[in-house]
């Protein structure tokens, strides 16, 4: 007669808020920022489709202090997305070997963040250049 009676401890409902999981949850929540910004772009598209008056209304909202605050918050969230994205991305690739040694994941993260900085800088530069042309 077996005396076994295995006891199952329930996973705490708030595990995602406790260490070491809170960092992961905050990383995932940057997706909310991406969605909110997408929503702003969609709002712009909707007002564009509704005509000049609606679009001017959207443009004047963009010059408000509230819009500026929202965009600065979104920028902070987006930058955190960039950093955590390239921290996670190397996990999805087979280990790279360069010069006979494994490439540490931190190097790939640094390279990724660097490329992202270059891409964003290039996009802004393109607008600045276009703006400077006659």
């Amino acid at each position: 007669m077996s005396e076994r009676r295995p006891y199952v401890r329930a996973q705490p409902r708030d595990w995602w808020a406790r260490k070491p999981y809170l960092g992961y949850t905050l990383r995932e929540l940057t997706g909310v920022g991406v969605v909110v910004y997408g929503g702003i772009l969609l709002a712009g598209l909707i007002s564009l489709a509704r005509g000049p008056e609606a679009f001017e209304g959207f443009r004047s909202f963009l010059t408000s202090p509230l819009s500026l605050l929202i965009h600065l918050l979104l920028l902070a969230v987006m930058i955190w997305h960039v950093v955590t994205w390239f921290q996670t991305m190397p996990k999805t690739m087979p280990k790279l070997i360069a010069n006979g040694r494994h490439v540490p994941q931190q190097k790939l993260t640094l390279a990724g963040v660097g490329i992202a900085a270059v891409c964003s800088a290039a996009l802004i530069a393109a607008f600045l250049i276009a703006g400077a042309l006659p």
Partner: protein
Amino acid sequence: MSEVPTSEIMERTKTIELRVLRYRPVSDHEPVFQAYQVPYSDDMSVLQVLQSVKDTQDGTLSFRWSCRMAICGSCGMMINGDPRLACNTFVRDLAPNPVTVEPLRNFPIERDLVVTVGDFVKKIESIYPYIIPKTPKSIEAGEYLQTPAQMAAYESFSDCINCMLCYAACPQFGANPDFIGPGAMALLQRYNGDSRDGGQQLRLDSIAGEDGVWSCTAVGVCSDACPKQVDPANAVNQNKTKSALDFFLRFIRPKDQGAGAKS
């Protein structure tokens, strides 16, 4: 770090409080903490302190252990809330505060610090944990040759000691006990990444389901918990990429390849 004299047994002049989660299936309705005051010296691991309790204070305390040197994978448990090997965790790093010891998280408790391992073993068995030769050779034809670079491609995944700390760390395994999990995926990648092996499609098909790689959300704490730097998070997530590509590429794959997951 204190000096450890090698020529004499250190005198145990200090005392640590150990709070151990006890569970005796015959007599206990549910687990309950029991505290022990244990003399210790700076060279002692948590495993040695547990052994001291069992030898001198309470012979009913049950826990798994074997090698005492972080290679057998037996003594995994939660120490101050973190999944650790007891033989590899030192009291001097935790003292003077009380040390909380609980059985490995996310597993059913058999008794005291002993958890049910059975499902983990079944998972390891399910991913074809052996070389399926790409081009079979007879013994007379000689060995399968492999360059150092080819071995480096899978070597870290072969370092797994089946200690299950990664399963204790993984919250998605905690939420879904049928998730194949980081340890089994590390073993899978050990074989899929081996140049001698030709069973990649077979193993890929076995983890293409919701309980395969797709329960993973890249939390990453499994690799942090691993005492052997196996990097199971990499094993799981690089197979997400492979599985996702296979999801679409299977339509142009030659028909006779792979056992085929049910579409």
